[in-house]
């Protein structure tokens, strides 16, 4: 399973890596803003994108729309924080498949990814 991780904090990207890589997911790329994630998405064609909502240059919200426009089958999991429920709902309407909430709980993250990947 090839995963692209987009978050402006390298701390968060590292944390996601450490949670999912031991479980057999391969992080094929990282992006630190909403423009880079689109570029990396085109270049790497990942199976799944983990996308932070708050990012520089272009928000995660706009990035969802862009990724879905590029590939309507794109599997996107939003990474949000408490208090961003409205944004999460908006992202899901725009085509995100699911979401996880910071601070990340490893079990919850893995369960969400599994759920998304099984819903082929």
């Amino acid at each position, binding site marked *: 399973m090839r995963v692209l991780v987009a978050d*402006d*904090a*390298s*701390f*968060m990207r*590292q*944390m996601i890596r*450490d949670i999912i890589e031991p479980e057999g997911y391969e992080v094929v790329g990282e992006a*630190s803003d909403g423009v880079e994630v689109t570029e990396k998405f085109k270049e790497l064609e990942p199976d799944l994108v983990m996308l932070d909502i*708050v*990012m*520089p*240059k272009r928000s995660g919200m706009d990035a969802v729309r862009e990724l879905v426009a590029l590939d309507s089958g794109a599997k996107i999991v939003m990474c949000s*924080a408490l*208090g961003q429920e409205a944004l999460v709902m908006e992202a899901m309407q725009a085509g995100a498949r699911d979401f996880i909430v*910071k*601070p*990340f709980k490893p079990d919850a993250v893995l369960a969400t990814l599994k759920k998304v990947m099984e819903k082929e």
Partner: protein
Amino acid sequence: MDLAKYRTLFLEEARDHLGELGGALLALEKNPGNGEAIDLAFRMAHSIKGMAGSLGYDSITEVAHLLEDRMDAARASGRVDPVEGLPVLFRGLDGLELMVNAVADTGDAPPPNPELVGILTGDSVPVAEEAPAEPAPGVAPAAPEAPAAPRPAAAASVRVRTETLDRFLSAVGEVILTSRQARTAAHREGRATPSALGFDRMDRVVGELQRRALSLRTAPLLRVMEPLPRLARDVGRRTGKRVEVELRGAELELDRSILDRVGDPLVHLVRNAIDHGVEPPAERRERGKAELGRLVVDARREKDSIRISVSDDGAGIDLDAVRARAVDAGLVHEGLAEDLPPDEVAALVFRPGLSTKPEVSDISGRGVGMDAVKATIESLGGRVELESRPGLGTTTSLVVPITAAVQRVLLAGVREETVAIPISKVERIVEVEAQGIERSGRESFALIDDEPVLVLDLARRLGLEPFSDDGQAPLVIAEVRGERVALRVERLAGQQEIYVKPVPRLLASSRALAGLTVLGDGSPVFALDVNQLL
């Protein structure tokens, strides 16, 4: 979860974010409707919240969350309230900085701060700052949108732990030294033999490897320059002065180990410039200057060094005051002080025990003077320069090497050891009769140029058997923290460029040992930090 690893990552990134947050708030102070700065501040607070939450730093999470809320409201309204809102944001930033520093010091976040939370939630009013705030405080970076502008793009970068990098560099150091040893051995068999020529080629390749490896350790000066405008703002408020700060060349890169050590000296220079240099607004007006003082922190590359200068347009160094203080402190004889040329008087500010203002500077909570600035910079193999024009201002420059590891040294034998003394510290070498060295109590003096100079017996200093009083004594005349001293050694063994590795902890019992290297012939050499000898 590897907590230590995440803590390191957190500290590094949170400090970067706080720096950006500070820059954004300064930009908002200049223009409360700067949308980019509002957005940046929001994102930085949000990101710090996320990281702190992941590590269970609840007090940091809470304050970052409240800041984020405030910035979110500002996003909605398109501006921050410069009179009531902005000071609260600065308080929040200060609080976050303190808490992040506490994580660095204690390994955990401090308990929640109800007062700070009260201020951020609007339940209590911030205590006014010491000096009355002017409606539009003049301190802001000169480039209008600079702090909110995106940083140089980190194109396809990876983050590597400093520890890993250091191990790698240490291995590269070994490669360099081993290849130099092999080359020396091959040359013994003849300079034009195939193996000697092969090692010459290898030497060039390894030299390139070394340059590239050392460049991995570099980071932009922005890290230490970014806080300066805010510092200037705070010092300005406290001293009732108005100063504008311009940063130039912050994108230049320096070795991290050097970078980390130029931060405090720069803070000191900026404080000094405002405290002692820039005149109060009324005085400036009288002198026909703009009320707003101007400070330029300029970094530029000079061959293998970087020159960072702090220039103010203030009154210049008060030479008479320096003279008087030097006489009071017993540094210069009264009769002599009169005749000292201006540049020598100015140079007195680098002497320990001289401060033209009686109070002790409070940087980092300890007394740090220009002598400490000079000692710090010199221990990095750099130098400090001072230029002052009465009435026009002062420029103080720190010239530091871009990479820390390679130094040109004088090799000297002390008993069975060889020590390396940085050439930059050496004035000259003299040889005197050992019997001519005068003892006075626990100290020894030699007459150099008809002037008594303190003699330091390096053998004794390094815990080896002290030298005897017979025969010739080679003395290396060096400048140590503003004093001329003579380092007594046993023999001199030439000059060389060496790659200095940090001293293994067990050996570092003497603070004067800065590093260790192995010469081409395989013998170990200790690099001396002469500033630690006095």
